[in-house]
């Protein structure tokens, strides 16, 4: 398996990392340790200790922060941006279609079984606060490198998010839309992020009990009486939106919200039911969606994926289990996952049995040659595998912040970047051209 090192091409330093080469070469060991301790203290002080949502683990644990940035050149990012926006447009078209005429299913491009029997399973991708705070902390600790490099800002995210939310206000809204963030509450592992975004956008952070339905609208209780709400940026799952609709026994949520939403009295972001596009099995069809809805060739390739629910695919997967990565369709956090090349024989056999029992619950992919970025480790600086979580906003326009969350597998050779299993985060730079 060849591994792409984002900093070095052989012995040559790739251009985006050129200045970091000097930075690292001239940094004394004591300074490095000092700064690492300082970064940790800063993260603790601001209280950003949550586990990345959906990954489980101790909510008070700090995710290790690695000071060595991950860098994209302007042109690398431009291509990524085009590709990500293209996927966002296709996914949006897909959601409109499957809750309407279902053309892509009638055309036989996606099996209806995958879509229609999908229990909505919406996850709100979080971690955006890590992107924002990592940058803030890096700038505070190393102002010099931010002077030497022209790095695109990420702090425009909150303004972009606010604009996007305002742009989807219902037609019934007159004047400046009132936007709120709906959080499950302070016990939620991503509460810090919810309150940070509310602060940055200057909008109210509310829990279910702060909202109520009266007649055709949703209102927020305030000290000055009820205030109508136009857009709800919800960071709670579908199942907790409206007990009348989803969980009648639950006291969580806002009774009657779905009736108001469906009759156009309020907008909910992300839309209820959009989780169908977040399913790992549906996800494998994104390139088909790009071709079907946009009539374009996908700019970004998907990781080749075998659907174990298909007999042919399953046969291939079972025959090549030691080389593959197997994941649960609805799984997250790197749990319930087999990394074939790293797994013991017994673990592979355990997965073989699971696959035989419920094949449709699994997908398989080749072991990815995730690229590496230099990372501070015990012995100095060494390459570690990384991934990227970009933050794309879809409203009237599609917007992407130049940056994102880079997760890094801190264990040598490890491909699991999840924070619950030894992953850390890095600041992600996009250089201005």
């Amino acid at each position, binding site marked *: 398996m060849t591994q792409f090192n984002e900093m070095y091409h052989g012995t040559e330093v790739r251009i985006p990392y050129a200045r970091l080469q000097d930075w690292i070469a001239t940094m004394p060991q004591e300074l490095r340790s000092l700064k690492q301790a300082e970064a940790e203290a800063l993260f603790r002080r601001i209280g950003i200790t949550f586990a990345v949502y959906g990954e489980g683990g101790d909510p008070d644990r700090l995710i290790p922060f690695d000071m060595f940035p991950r860098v994209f050149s302007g042109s690398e990012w431009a291509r990524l941006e085009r590709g990500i926006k293209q996927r966002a447009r296709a996914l949006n078209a897909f959601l409109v279609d499957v*809750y*309407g*005429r*279902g053309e892509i*299913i009638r055309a036989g491009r996606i099996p*209806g*079984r995958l879509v*229609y*029997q*999908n*229990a909505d399973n919406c996850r709100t991708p979080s971690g955006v606060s890590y992107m924002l705070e990592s940058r803030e902390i890096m700038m505070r600790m190393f102002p010099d490198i931010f002077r030497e490099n022209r790095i695109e800002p990420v702090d425009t995210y909150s303004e972009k998010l606010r604009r996007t939310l305002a742009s989807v206000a219902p037609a019934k809204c007159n004047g400046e839309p009132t936007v709120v963030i709906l959080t499950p509450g302070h016990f939620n592992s991503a509460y810090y992020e919810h309150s940070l975004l509310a602060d940055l956008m200057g909008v109210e952070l509310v829990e279910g009990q702060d909202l*109520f*339905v*009266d*007649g*055709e609208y949703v209102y927020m209780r305030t000290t000055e009486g009820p205030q109508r709400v136009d857009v709800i940026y919800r960071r709670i799952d579908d199942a907790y939106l409206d*007990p*009348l*609709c989803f969980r*009648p026994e639950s006291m969580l949520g806002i*009774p*009657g919200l*779905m*009736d*108001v939403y*469906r*009759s*156009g*009295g309020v907008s909910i972001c992300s839309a209820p039911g959009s989780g169908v596009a977040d399913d790992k099995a549906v996800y494998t069809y994104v390139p088909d969606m790009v071709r079907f809805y946009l009539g374009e060739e996908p700019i970004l390739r998907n990781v080749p994926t075998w659907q174990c629910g298909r007999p042919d695919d399953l046969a291939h997967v079972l025959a090549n289990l030691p080389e593959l990565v197997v994941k649960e369709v609805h799984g997250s956090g790197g749990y319930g996952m087999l990394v074939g090349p790293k797994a013991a024989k017994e673990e592979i056999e355990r997965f073989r049995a699971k696959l035989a029992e419920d094949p449709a619950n699994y997908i398989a992919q080749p072991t990815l040659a995730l690229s590496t970025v230099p990372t501070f480790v015990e012995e100095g600086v060494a390459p570690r595998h990384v991934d990227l979580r970009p933050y794309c906003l879809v409203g009237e326009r599609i917007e992407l912040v130049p940056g994102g969350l880079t997760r890094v597998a801190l264990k040598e050779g490890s491909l699991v970047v999840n924070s619950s299993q030894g992953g850390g985060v890095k600041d992600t730079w996009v250089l201005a051209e």
Partner: protein
Amino acid sequence: MRLMVDHLTLYRYDAPVRSIVQSHRLTPSIFAGQAVIDWEVTVSGGVEGARHRDGAGDEVRGWTIAGPVTEVAVQVRGTVETMDLSGVLRGHRESVAADCYLRDTAPTRIDPALAALGESASGADMLSLAHALSAAVSGAIAYRPGVTHAHTTAAEALALGEGVCQDHAHALIACARYRGIPARYVSGYLFATEDGTMHEAAHAWAELHVAALGWVGFDPANRCSPDARYIRLGSGFDAQDAAPIRGIARGGATEAMDVTVAILQSAQ
């Protein structure tokens, strides 16, 4: 047939509640088998809220009732002209794909006994299979009120061998889905004849999606398909999803519900 409906649901609370929110599926469906002559829903102390037609074609209306209240009356009165279409839901507009109704829910989840019941039915085509499934459910669950409750599952009802229309519908839905036929729960009214052979004025049955015909109703509780004696209100994955009235009261009081339904044939 011209049917007159008088349906009163009375909610009583043992202590005043702060507020009540309800969502109603209480308007007759629009399809070739029935036409509304007049129809009115009133809620004592209620403010009519949002109104929309959902993906399954049902009209859904929200109501809010500001407290403190100890009693709420939901009164439905109306007249509907009905026609016998042998259970076929002709001319009904909806946008949800039929295959969505292959998805199971807790009360309609298959178990070995339901699967065996589903297997026991056979038919030369989908329609006759649907009829056979309905007959199998009628045979396996005897009509008997009082032995099951609102949260009884299809599997539990089959194990008991007794139940009411809700249990029959859930069992038929489970068996049909098991056989690959999309199936859903329908709530409505039934004009009960005087000889007492028909059961339950506030009624429920199942619809199965038969490729050639579309949605077709089956009432295993009465061993027939819906005809001119039936008024269709709305549908869902199961009883809870298709409930004519859903509501939540804030305030921690105990709720008691009293329902009276009268369906009469109009002399015109």
